[in-house]
């Protein structure tokens, strides 16, 4: 009973005509899209590559930005411990303390410069001075004779810079002078230029330590006198 009506429906169904536009241009459109998309394998590769590349760029930018922030951090900032930790790793790998001393010196200069005009809030600068001195002391213990000469030379250069930076910061100057000898490898008491002169005027036999200093032309004692 249903057979004939179904035949009729089928005939009717087959009368549904595909639009001429689709018949004429359909394959052309598909063909263009297919050629633009290239092969499925290549597409998959480029998509993956694009994602990986974007992620790589993002990761690099993030790490670079974060690294710069860590490197620029000063004492008392939250990123500072990371900076110290990374320096320890670098020191273990390279075996050199140059980076640490230079960083401490730069931090000290930056911390002091940041406080210009607001001398009452010098905690970061004072801590930077302490750290700088501690770094010098630590490095000095690890040097051989040749390295010590280079070390002193670098220290002298830094001293010249410090002189100009700490002008107008008596508290910083005081902190820098504290335990100066221990830090800079000399037992001479004073760092003030006038006090050094007094010391120089004493007879040599009354001041054996000064004798040692004079015998060592590369000593930092006279150069570091602030």
């Amino acid at each position, binding site marked *: 009973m249903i057979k004939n009506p179904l035949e*009729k429906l089928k005939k*009717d169904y*087959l009368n*549904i005509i595909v639009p001429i536009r689709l018949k004429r241009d359909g*394959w052309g459109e598909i*063909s263009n*899209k297919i050629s633009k998309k290239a092969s499925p394998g290549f597409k998959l590769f480029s998509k993956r590559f694009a994602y990986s590349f974007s992620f790589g760029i993002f990761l690099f930018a993030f790490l670079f930005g974060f690294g710069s922030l860590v490197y620029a951090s000063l004492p008392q900032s939250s990123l500072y411990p990371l900076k110290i930790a990374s320096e320890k790793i670098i020191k273990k790998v390279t075996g050199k303390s140059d980076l640490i001393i230079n960083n401490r010196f730069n931090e000290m200069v930056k911390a002091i410069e940041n406080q210009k005009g607001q001398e009452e809030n010098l905690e970061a600068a004072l801590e930077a001075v302490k750290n700088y001195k501690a770094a010098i002391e630590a490095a000095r213990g690890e040097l051989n004779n040749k390295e010590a000469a280079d070390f002193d030379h670098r220290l002298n250069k830094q001293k010249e810079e410090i002189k100009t930076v700490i002008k107008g910061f008596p508290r910083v100057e005081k902190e820098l002078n504290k335990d100066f000898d221990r830090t800079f490898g000399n037992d001479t008491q004073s760092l003030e230029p006038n006090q050094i002169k007094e010391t120089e005027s004493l007879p040599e036999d009354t001041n054996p330590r000064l004798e040692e200093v004079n015998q060592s032309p590369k000593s930092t004692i006279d150069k570091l006198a602030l």
Partner: protein
Amino acid sequence: MNKIPNYNELIEEAKRGSANAFGEIYRLFLDRIYRFIYSMVLDETLAEDITQETFLKAWKFLPKFSLKKGTFQAFLYRVARNSVIDYQRKKKDLRLPKESENFIPDNINLEKNYEDSENGEYVLQILKKLPKFERQIVILRYFEEMSHKDIAHVVGKKENTVRVRVHRALRILRKDIKKTK
């Protein structure tokens, strides 16, 4: 009438990346796929777009197609069906199905058209009365002459379920045709 020549070689060539072979497949199946999609969405422009989308997707998924999983026509109809479903899902907010169902003018005289309908208006009016799933099954089984197994693959159901649903669809159809006579 609907028989398609042996196209296995074309499929293999197309799988290897031959656009020309796929072009032949396109020409072989265009009418059938368009009719199937048109009878689902009942909108000429929409049917054109979804037909094109179907062939693009078929090209994309062709490397994954294997004759072990079923016939190529089952694969192609499955892509077409999924494309329609995807489209309707995307346009759900626009209430596309309701709009589409209104595509056929209500003033068509079914009794008159039973004898002399043009461009499938009568069959579409009858099919419209069937639930969507049954509509697909009737088209695939009786108009496209596909096996129950292939239909099961297209609609993603078990073969037995398809058989039962075909009978149910026929019952509904019988009633509707009686009414229009």
